């Protein structure tokens, strides 16, 4: 009869081996061999992320298609009546089209920078790291490289979202502006003060700047990227100051900054590629 202790010892040995593997992965801090292994595993698992995106997009499109079909018949009758009534409004429609084109040019940030900007969709995100990471659907094949700026549109303006952290063949990992590992040199627009923006893993950022009695920093002031940043061009909106408080160091103040981007709803991003590195979009 088998000794009960040996029956249970095998799972414990297996547990110890698995935990050792886990600790080795943690402690080795992404050495070259670990990175190669991680990239290989990513290619094996990438179909799950892609299929998730395909399933959701297909479901959304199917649902939208059904809604359109159901509404089409009634809309057809209504539109015929409207067309008959408003034949004289074609001129006004033409003017609205021209205005629409101007507004699209304002919102269409990509057209302003030509080939330097690459649009990318959010591919996956985890609630464990909601304010830390997202994965987008553009990678090495599209000309993306690490440590380039990632923006998103808010109120018709391009605003800072994060930067590329890790690049794979068809996707990239973005470190968000609210990630504690993220920091960017910034400027308080109205006060004309340099500051350092850091993430806090929640919906706000912290801005540290030197105390100066002659300068008043108030709530609602805009925070923009500074010329000191090596990743972000100067002048992109980061957020607005929501409160200012003393820091533990006497010479500095800390401001709480509300990001310009609503991180709960971001789905489209813009990757800024360096000049000379044209997008393949």
């Amino acid at each position, binding site marked *: 009869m088998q000794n009960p202790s040996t029956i249970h010892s095998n799972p414990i040995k297996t547990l110890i081996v698995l935990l050792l593997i*886990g600790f080795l*992965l943690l402690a080795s801090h992404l050495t070259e061999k670990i990175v190669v292994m991680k990239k290989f595993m990513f290619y094996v698992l990438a179909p*799950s*992320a892609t299929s998730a*995106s395909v399933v959701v997009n297909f479901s959304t499109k199917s649902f939208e298609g059904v809604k359109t079909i159901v509404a089409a018949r009634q809309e057809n009758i209504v539109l015929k009546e409207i067309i008959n009534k408003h034949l004289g409004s074609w001129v006004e429609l033409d003017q609205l089209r021209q205005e629409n084109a101007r507004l699209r040019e304002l919102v269409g940030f990509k057209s302003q920078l030509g080939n330097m900007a690459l649009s990318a969709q959010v591919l996956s995100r985890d609630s464990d790291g909601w304010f830390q990471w997202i994965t987008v659907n553009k990678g090495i094949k599209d000309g993306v490289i690490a440590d380039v700026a990632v923006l998103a549109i808010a109120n018709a303006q391009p605003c800072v979202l994060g930067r590329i952290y890790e690049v794979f063949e068809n996707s990239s990992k973005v470190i968000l502006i609210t990630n504690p*590992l993220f920091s960017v040199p910034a400027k308080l627009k109205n006060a004309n003060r340099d500051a350092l923006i850091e993430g*806090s893993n929640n919906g706000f950022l912290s801005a540290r700047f030197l105390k100066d009695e002659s300068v008043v920093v108030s709530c609602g002031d805009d925070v923009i990227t500074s010329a000191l940043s090596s990743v972000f061009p100067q002048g992109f909106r980061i957020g607005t100051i929501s409160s200012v408080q003393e820091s533990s160091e006497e010479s500095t103040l800390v401001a709480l900054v509300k990001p310009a981007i609503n991180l709960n709803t971001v789905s489209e991003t813009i990757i800024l590629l360096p000049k000379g590195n044209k997008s393949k979009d």
Partner: protein
Amino acid sequence: MKKIIIYTIAFFVVVSIHLIINTYLATFGIAPNIALLAVIFLAVSKGSRMGMWAGFLLGLSLDVLLSDMFGSRTIALTIIGYSAGLLRGEWDDSSGLNQAVLVLLCSFTYLTLLIIEYAIFSTIQANLLLNHITLLQPVLNALISPAIFWVFGRFINNN
């Protein structure tokens, strides 16, 4: 052989569902941790061995796809899988209340393990991991666990 194929397919499906829910269905970042629920279910229904292997593989997948600390979720889910598996046969796992309590405890344990790992291996202050999402997710996990366990149970019984 058939079982291996079925469990492999189920593994990819669980990862896909986890990604779908977290990416597209999360509300203000709050979404259930399907991978954690799958590990706990397999542990209490099949034992510690299956639980820890499920935890190891699903944790490694989440680390590859989503995490910065490569290995953090691997360790946490492996420990959760093994520990939950020790309860197999020791309690009434058909009771919805028991399932919810177990999932709540395991979720907070998972969070605690991640905080400890970040405190030891990361430059981020471990307390920064705590926000409204990490504190509400265990409650959400517990609330939906009876339904999720029922679905998983149907899958296991049919295969």
